[in-house]
């Protein structure tokens, strides 16, 4: 899994660097100098990583960054990862459609009920608390304005 992810990233970066070089060719010298100086080595380094993975040479030592927890079976982990990603993207879609003030309580409540399997009353109270905090702080105190959702005619926010 680690190797496949590394491969994917290497390929993606090679593509990005290639695009970077290609776009920069038309620019005046001063504008294209740094991008070229960055993208050419980037392309080569990504190529090196690609070869390393493909040729299967030696395990790389761990990065100085956190490792995803390996407590569960890969199947469980994969399912839950997709779930988490789904909630994140779904929340964004909800915000687009109905606006922040409505999306927030809906998402919190839905998550507690569906993922957390909490009871109705607890979910309702928790959602109310979160919404109150969010509304009180951002709308009332700071007057930060959130646009209406697309379903309600607001097309702003971009």
């Amino acid at each position: 899994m680690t190797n496949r992810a590394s491969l994917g990233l290497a390929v993606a970066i090679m593509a990005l660097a290639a695009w970077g070089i290609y776009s920069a060719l038309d620019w005046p010298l001063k504008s294209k100098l740094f991008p070229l100086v960055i993208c050419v080595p980037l392309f080569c380094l990504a190529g090196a990583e690609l070869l390393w993975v493909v040729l299967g040479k030696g395990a790389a030592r761990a990065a100085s960054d956190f490792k995803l927890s390996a407590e569960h079976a890969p199947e469980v982990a994969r399912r839950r990862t997709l779930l988490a990603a789904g909630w994140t993207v779904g929340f964004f879609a909800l915000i687009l459609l109905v606006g922040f003030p409505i999306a927030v309580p809906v998402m919190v409540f839905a998550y507690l009920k569906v993922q957390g399997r909490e009871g109705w009353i607890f979910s309702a109270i928790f959602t109310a608390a979160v919404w109150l905090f969010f509304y009180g702080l951002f709308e009332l105190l700071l007057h930060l304005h959130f646009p209406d959702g697309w379903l309600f005619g607001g097309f702003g926010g971009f």
Partner: protein
Amino acid sequence: MKWKLALAAMLLPLAAPAQPNFAGKTITIIVGYKPGGGYDATARLLARHLPDHVPGKPTVIVQNMPGGNSIIAANHMYNVAKPDGLTIGTFNRNLPIAQLTKVQGVKYDMLKFAWIGSAANETTILAIRNDLPYKTFEDLRKAKEPVVIGSTGPGANTYDFPLLLKDLVGLNFKIVSGYSSSADIMLAVERKEADGRAGSLSSLRPFIDRGLVHPVIRARSTEPGLEKLPVDESFAPNPRAKAIMALRSAPEQVARPYVMPPSTPADIVKVMRKAFADVIADPAAQAEAKKAKMDFDFTDGDEALKIMKEVLNQPKDIVDEFSKYVKFGE
């Protein structure tokens, strides 16, 4: 006969349009920049004092919508904001130039906004470090060594003003750009890395007062104390160059533009214009502006619109020539 008069008197209030009243409402001023800059500071000053001058004493808040050098804010004001008098927008004064030079992404028309006016005039000057031998503009013209002018990047007056002086009038400038802000350029001036910079009088004033730099030339619009300073246009070698310089300076008379969305009802616009004029004349607001060293004068919306028309109705050959020198940016 008398009953006709009585009837008319009873019906009169129904016939006369009601004065727009904002009681209990919230007006939002959308600023096309992040907090902390000049446009934002002016907007917040207005937000503090406007409620006293708008009928109904509404709440006035500021919302920052930076991005695309405030084109995003202008687009929002033109296409998304509702023309109900509850949204006011302020953005980069060079946006008419962006429209003129057909910058990609422009989705507004400066002429169609409901103009409130401008909350300030800007005076652009070029200031040179005091310990250099160039005391007047004539000295600068005769300079043998290149004079290093620090700037942030194309589109800012720190870059465009000296650029036109260099390319059109032939001054011996080396324009070094890439500084992250005009304050950083002043540090470079102190270090003798740069010899001077162009910019608005209000941003240069603390450094002039401190004795670091002195102004040598200014753009068209002026301020008390600077009238005697030579104007860049007077050195233009031909009418076309003069037109280009004038075009660059034109937006400075509408230095802090305030608009409402197109099709805002005329009576609301009228009320807003009067409110702005009153706020800017308010001694308390003026005192605050002075303390903050902010320029604070009202130019009425009709005047602002006239200047927009001037800018946007330039002949094609001037616009093409202009675009060779001046790009839209910061």
